[in-house]
């Protein structure tokens, strides 16, 4: 008796495998569970065991051929005489059905032959057609059957409600499983058609939120020294350089230096791999009235505080005027978001796909804090918030990363550091 051996399921999500080597040839005798072929899948390398004891008859799949799970790979002769007994069975049952079952058989022959109208109604109303009785010829479910079913079952809501959580309890809720809401503009509402920019922002955000498992952490940093330093030189700086010196480049400098020490954070998700980027290109989020631009400061590690400040100034200006070029918005490896500029003290930014993390700098606020163990002082404090792609990064590394930035910022020395 000839049996088929099929490509087994070698992992939960595996749908195909490549036969790298046949371990048997036609004519070989194998025992049950003997390995017959080496198979590589995108998850595992494994041996395919024989499902039967017998003699290999024919190899159907070739070496280096990729075969879908469940597809035939070879025939094996088990030497059993099952054929005969099966035939006997068949004859017996055939005789019985001839006598007993012609009527019901005929009645149901059209049971699963659905017309376009029936298919449409079933899809629109989420009806499981296998549960309906057909009144048409051969048991066919007619359009009217479905319409009657819809009319007679006015409350289909409780069913999906109880079934939905059962369906996939392990999954976190996603946009897909959210029940659809009808967004209808009432007469006094104003409809704003989506601009290309808005559409792009929306799709990027959804992609990022859907795909990336976000984690979030925050540190509080004492930046009193930087505040004092900047206050001291800002007027002179503006006069000399022609643009204002903000806090942004100070933070940026510390972050960029720290990224240099933590290449894991300066990385992107590459589908089947993580890519640590050599260049440190900082994306900065710039809000214009109706949109959000993320221009990129290339090779930020090669720039001084003044140089970074100048880049931020000119890119932000270009963004607001809508003059950014395509290449000025590409290639970012880490994003910094200056949410403090509009007074925020905490935020949970969405990671800029496919980067690994995004950091937001919140408002600098004067606060009473405990210093030197037992004294209270008024210090300039700022929160740094970090959202990270938990596929790429874990809490430990990010904690260290933030701690290092904090350390650098707090160690800023008025007389030692310089901005040029």
């Amino acid at each position: 008796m000839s049996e088929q051996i099929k490509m087994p399921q070698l992992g939960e999500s595996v749908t195909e495998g490549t036969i790298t080597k046949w371990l048997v040839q036609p004519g070989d005798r194998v025992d049950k569970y003997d390995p017959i072929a080496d198979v590589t899948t995108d998850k595992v390398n494994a041996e395919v065991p024989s499902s039967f004891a017998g003699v290999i008859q024919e190899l159907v799949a070739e070496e280096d051929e990729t075969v879908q799970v469940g597809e035939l790979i070879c025939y094996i002769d088990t030497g059993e005489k099952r054929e005969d007994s099966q035939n006997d069975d068949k004859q017996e049952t055939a005789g019985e059905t001839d006598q007993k079952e012609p009527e019901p058989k005929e009645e149901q022959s059209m049971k699963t032959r659905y017309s376009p109208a029936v298919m449409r109604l079933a899809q629109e109303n989420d009806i499981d057609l296998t549960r309906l009785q057909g009144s048409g010829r051969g048991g066919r479910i007619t359009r009217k059957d479905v319409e009657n079913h819809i009319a007679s079952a006015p409350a289909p809501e409780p069913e999906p409600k109880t079934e939905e959580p059962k369906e996939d309890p392990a999954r976190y809720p996603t946009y897909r499983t959210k029940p659809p809401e009808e967004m209808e503009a009432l007469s006094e509402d104003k409809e704003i058609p989506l601009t290309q920019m808005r559409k792009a922002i929306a799709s990027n955000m959804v992609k990022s939120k859907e795909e990336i498992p976000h984690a979030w952490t925050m540190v509080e940093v004492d930046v009193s020294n930087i505040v004092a330093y900047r206050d001291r030189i800002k007027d002179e700086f503006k006069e000399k350089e022609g643009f204002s010196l903000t806090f942004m480049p100070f933070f940026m400098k510390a972050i960029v230096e720290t990224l240099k020490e933590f290449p894991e954070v300066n990385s992107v998700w590459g589908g089947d791999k993580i890519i640590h980027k050599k260049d440190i290109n900082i994306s900065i989020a710039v809000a214009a009235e109706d949109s959000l631009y993320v221009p990129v400061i290339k090779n930020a590690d090669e720039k001084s505080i003044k140089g970074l400040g100048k880049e931020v100034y000119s890119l932000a200006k270009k963004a607001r005027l809508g003059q950014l070029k395509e290449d000025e918005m590409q290639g970012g490896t880490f994003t910094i978001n200056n949410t403090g500029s509009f007074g925020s003290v905490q935020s949970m930014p969405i990671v800029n796909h496919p980067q690994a993390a995004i950091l937001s700098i919140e408002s600098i606020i004067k606060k009473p804090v405990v210093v030197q163990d037992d004294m209270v002082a008024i210090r300039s404090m700022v929160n740094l918030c970090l959202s990270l792609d938990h596929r790429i990064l874990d809490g430990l590394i990010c904690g260290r990363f933030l701690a290092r930035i904090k350390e650098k910022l707090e160690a800023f020395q008025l007389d030692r550091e310089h901005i040029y």
Partner: protein
Amino acid sequence: MAVMTYIEAVTAAMREEMTRDEKVFVLGEDVGARGGVFGATKGLFETFGEERVIDTPLAESAIAGVGIGAAMYGMKPIAEMQFADFMLPAVNQIISEAAKTRYRSNNDWTSPITVRAPYGGGVHGALYHSQSVESLFNHVPGLKIVMPSTPYDVKGLLKAAVRDPDPVLFFEHKRAYRLIKGDVPDHDYTLPIGKADVKKEGTDVTVISYGLCLQFAMQAAEKLEDEGISSHVLDLRTVYPLDREAVVEAASKTGKVLLVTEDNKEGSLMGEVAAVIGEHCLFDLDAPVQRLAGPDVPSMPYAPPMEKHFMMNPEKVEAAIRDLAEF
């Protein structure tokens, strides 16, 4: 309101239009003192005289040609073809001239002629007196083809045809002439050309037909109603150009469509109706669109059993509706 036969409605419509507008006149073979071979023009000669009820020679091309010329000069001729079968000598005038006058003259000229012709079988007329010729013309833009099924529709549509600014072919089923009776208002009314009419609402099967077959469909539908099969019946009334919206709506209503015509099946205008349904109703269809039509043989036979076999009747329609309902 009076009960009239189908042909009485034809006569009444012509009489009313001739009274209303002296540009309306009738011409055809034996339409004068004889009153027409079926009696459609009976009494018109006496009322309106020989200048407005004109007997013509046996020359259909002349009947059409004279009518078209008069129409282009501002008259409103009603040309009677004694039998639709006899129209073929006039086809050149109708297709090449009447249908194209407006288009060819860039709207300067029109040809508002009405050509009346009795069509169809079931009267032992055989070859030259039984044909359905509508599908010879339902491919000619510029023409309108009206084929009413009830006396009420006959009067309203014939009056509309006379008033229409372009040529209209008005086909009357000759067996319906005295077979079909119905209420017809005495007052002046017209019905819109180009609009189909739902003759009966239903939910199981849609039957689309026109002319005498529509009557058979109604009879079958009424009989099946007692069995619990509910038919939705659409009367095309104007078979060219088709009222596509009404066809789509009616077909979508039940998803099971039966098209009935007495014409030979292949190439009948029901093929066009089926195409409209195919283009627009896929996701509402619950069964293959069915055509019930005459066999593809050269002509209506003379032998009574053969003629009966050819002709449409309520029993054939009933069986076809039931078959679809059970599908």
